[in-house]
């Protein structure tokens, strides 16, 4: 990882920038997104939406801007990530618009319009992130700041006046007309904190320590600070009754720890602690128990609620998906309004109903590709922090998708989380765009050709020449 690679002796694989490929994929993604919007108009109202030109132009402008931003600021970045994200976001907008139309006209819902605003903000922050973070390694400087900020973010909803409880979970803050989930920002900050801390302490964690009962335990001073910060986050989430986020943060912590120390034991310990935690949560907290019971026997709580517990949402989602079958009933031909909160947590069943199993499998493939491209970025990354950062970011998308899609399709108990890029929800969308920007930043750094060092002859010929190297190259 250090020193120069002689350009002449060993042939080195040089990544191409592939910006052209990205543009082609982006055009396909735009076609899918705008096509879906047209399909919604045709399917629900029988005509092409009147605002299609304005809408289409705006979407094109946003994504072309994102593409040009990548071209200028991260020319060697992974070419697949941005188009995948653009497509998911586009499909999400169309589906949210379709769900808007399914509501009574009196409600005058325009969640799609708000989502487009949030997407615009997301793309702007995506570009800002690329601009402000020319090299991801500078984020390592903010390891502890990020950790502290994450905890602050998580405490915000607990504060009076700005904190806001919606549907039993106190995870929102309200500032004037804008509602925001600081937990989504905390997620990104935590990943930075985990990666920064573990990049520095990974050797100590892996090697130094006491062997007890055949297990190498790390020293408290190595693991302690991290453990404490993480425990605070979890405690807050448990107090806020945000099961999905607790699961996500816990998973992120265990996975980054495992990758950093290269010890499978962490997965085992993490798994055992998780099992214990689940058991404790089920016996201690009624709201957790209820989730498990409705998951095991959804039809015990449908159509009539039992003791105030109803599985209406889950069952309607399952009914919708079964109703949709292989190819779905088509935009406008389903009844997704039957699913409460179809546009946020339950967007996947709504899509399953109208676009079918085929569409859900396609979307899951897109998520799978995003995650695997993210992990690919981690593998080619040239520094520990970059590796851990991209592992954390990719894992956050994988876990979030798994927890929410698994929850709404009945694979695991239901916990509230948004589906990345698809669901209605500003904080989540913006945070995920920033995650993509960071992933692109790491991949740009790692795919960029190494600076070629002058050969010995050149050095000999120009003995007095001062060779200027950029700061980054030296650190490798």
């Amino acid at each position: 990882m250090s020193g120069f690679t002689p350009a002449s002796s060993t042939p080195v694989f040089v990544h191409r920038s592939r910006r052209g490929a990205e543009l082609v994929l982006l055009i396909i993604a735009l076609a899918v997104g705008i096509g879906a919007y047209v399909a919604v108009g045709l399917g629900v109202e029988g005509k092409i939406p009147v605002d299609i030109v304005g809408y289409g132009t705006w979407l094109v402008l946003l994504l072309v801007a994102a593409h040009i931003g990548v071209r200028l600021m991260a020319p060697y970045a992974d070419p697949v990530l941005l188009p995948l994200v653009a497509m998911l976001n586009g499909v999400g907008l169309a589906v949210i618009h379709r769900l808007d139309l399914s509501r009574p006209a009196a409600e005058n819902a325009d969640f799609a319009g708000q989502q487009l605003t949030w997407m615009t903000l997301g793309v702007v922050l995506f570009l800002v992130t690329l601009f402000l973070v020319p090299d991801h390694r500078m984020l390592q400087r903010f390891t502890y700041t990020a950790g502290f900020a994450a905890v602050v973010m998580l405490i915000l909803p607990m504060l009076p006046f700005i904190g806001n409880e919606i549907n039993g979970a106190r995870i929102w803050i309200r500032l004037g007309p804008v509602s925001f989930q600081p937990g989504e920002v905390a997620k990104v900050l935590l990943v930075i904190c985990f990666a920064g801390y573990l990049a520095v302490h990974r050797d100590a964690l892996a090697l130094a320590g006491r062997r007890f009962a055949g297990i190498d335990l790390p020293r408290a001073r190595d693991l302690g600070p991290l453990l404490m910060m993480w425990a605070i986050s979890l405690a807050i989430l448990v107090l806020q009754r945000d099961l999905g986020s607790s699961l996500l943060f816990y998973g992120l912590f265990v996975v980054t720890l495992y990758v950093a120390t290269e010890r499978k034991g962490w997965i085992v310990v993490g798994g055992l602690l998780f099992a214990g935690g689940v058991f404790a949560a089920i016996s201690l907290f009624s709201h957790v128990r209820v989730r498990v019971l409705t998951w095991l026997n959804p039809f015990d709580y449908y159509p009539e609620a039992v003791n105030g517990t109803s599985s209406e949402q889950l069952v309607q989602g399952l009914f919708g998906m079964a109703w949709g079958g292989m190819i779905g009933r088509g935009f406008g031909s389903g009844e997704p309004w039957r699913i409460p909160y179809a546009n946020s947590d339950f967007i996947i069943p709504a899509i399953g109903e109208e676009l079918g199993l085929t569409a859900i499998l396609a979307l899951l493939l897109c998520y799978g590709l995003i995650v695997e491209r993210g992990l690919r970025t981690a593998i080619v990354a040239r520094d520990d922090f970059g590796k851990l950062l991209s592992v954390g970011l990719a894992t956050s998308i994988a876990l979030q998708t798994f927890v929410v899609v698994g929850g709404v399709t009945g694979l695991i108990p239901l916990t509230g989380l948004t589906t990345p890029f698809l669901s209605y929800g500003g904080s989540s969308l913006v945070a995920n765009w920033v995650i993509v920007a960071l992933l692109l930043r790491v991949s740009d750094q790692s795919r960029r050709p190494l600076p070629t060092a002058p050969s010995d002859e050149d050095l000999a010929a120009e003995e007095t020449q001062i060779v200027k190297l950029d700061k980054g190259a030296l650190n490798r």
Partner: protein
Amino acid sequence: MNRPIRTLSVGCLILFVALMLNVTYVQFFKANWYNDRADNRRVTEEAYSQQRGDILVGKKAVATSVPSDTKFEWQRTYPGGKKYAPITGFMSYSYGQTGIERTQDSVLSGKDNKLFTNRLVDLVTNSEPAGGNVELTIDPKVQDAAYEGLTALGEDVQAAAVAIEPSTGKVLAMASTPTYNPDRLANNDITAAQKSYNQLSKDEDEPLLNRSIQTALPPGSTFKLVTAAAAIEDLGMDGDSMVYGGASLDLPGTDVNLPNLNGSSCGGEQITLTRALEVSCNTAFGQLGMELTDEQMQDQAEGFGFGQDYLDDLGPLAVSKYPDNGGDKAKQARAAIGQQDVIATPLQMAMVSAGIANGGEVMKPYLVDRVTSSSLDVIDQGNPTAIDNQPAVSQDTAEILTDMMVSTVENGTATAAAIDGVSVAGKTGTAQTTPDRPPYAWFTSFAPAENPSIAVAVMVQKSGTERSEIAGGRLGGPIAKAMMEAAIS
């Protein structure tokens, strides 16, 4: 760190594969399970709001769908009203379907495989899938006669009348009172429909019941036809054979005797079998019941359809039964006159007459004459079949029984059904159960006797008539007569 990252990517792959498998399971393998659930409102509402095919009698629809401006696109209505309610049944959002609406649901909704090509055409032409039509075997004139006859008995009368074409088993009429207005149960205003249903289901007179097929009661003296058939078949008798006709029959092993209805003799110690049927002589048939074995009686009853569920087009059907008396002579005697534990539906008693009318062969009753597609192509046609491989009685026995029944109308208790210029075969019945409740009045007949085109059964379970006035002939006879006249004219 690359090794754990590779492991991690495999782990993520497993997570996504698990999601995909689970979604495939829900949306493909388990989809039908979800879609078939009664509490799946997507499916029930779709079924409820679609345009179903018509149920037709003659060329007239007795159930049809009309466009609706409520939240459901279509409203099911019943132009056939109360008169046809026991046949059509109803299509309700909250309580599902009954009657023909239920048994022919797949045709009416257009989901039946018989309509596959039509569905294909609908798919290609992008038109709404339309249901098929069901044409009933009902003869509207006979149905009118049956319904008007029953309603003339009064408001709170529980009664039923049913008619069959003997040669085919086509059900020509099926009426039951009290009845209900199916429009109120099919109402798109669900709360109103639920209110009507609650009201109807609480009504002591059970208006939702189709008494022609769902009420099995002791058939009384009409069952003597079965006993007579067994006597002719198994004891080698004919209409002139002499039987016991005394005032009272001693029942072995009991303190009680079996008396005649009015306590007098049937016209002598020994009378002909024909005379015994004419006056509905209890002692004569009680005696025959003791001479016949349980097995012989059971076989004979089953030959006419007892113990079978033979009506595919409507249901649920109450199954008529001849009991196993375990060789108890007293029980056998009482069972032979249609008491004890013998129970029969009006349809069953109509089949006894129809079997005799059809030369001994009992045809399986059916209600669906034809199934047509929305474009009126005939897709399926009702097919007359016998209920058993062998006839219930021989041709000769059938002829003897016919003569005896004609004689009963001409000279006996069944004169109420006599029609000028037509020879009618008939039998009355008055079934006593317990002393505290009124007897059931029965009547069964067919006409014309020489070439029967209709067999009828009328049953009055409860009426406003004075107890002493209740007799099968008086209550059921005129209704049966009107029905037969409607069929013959």
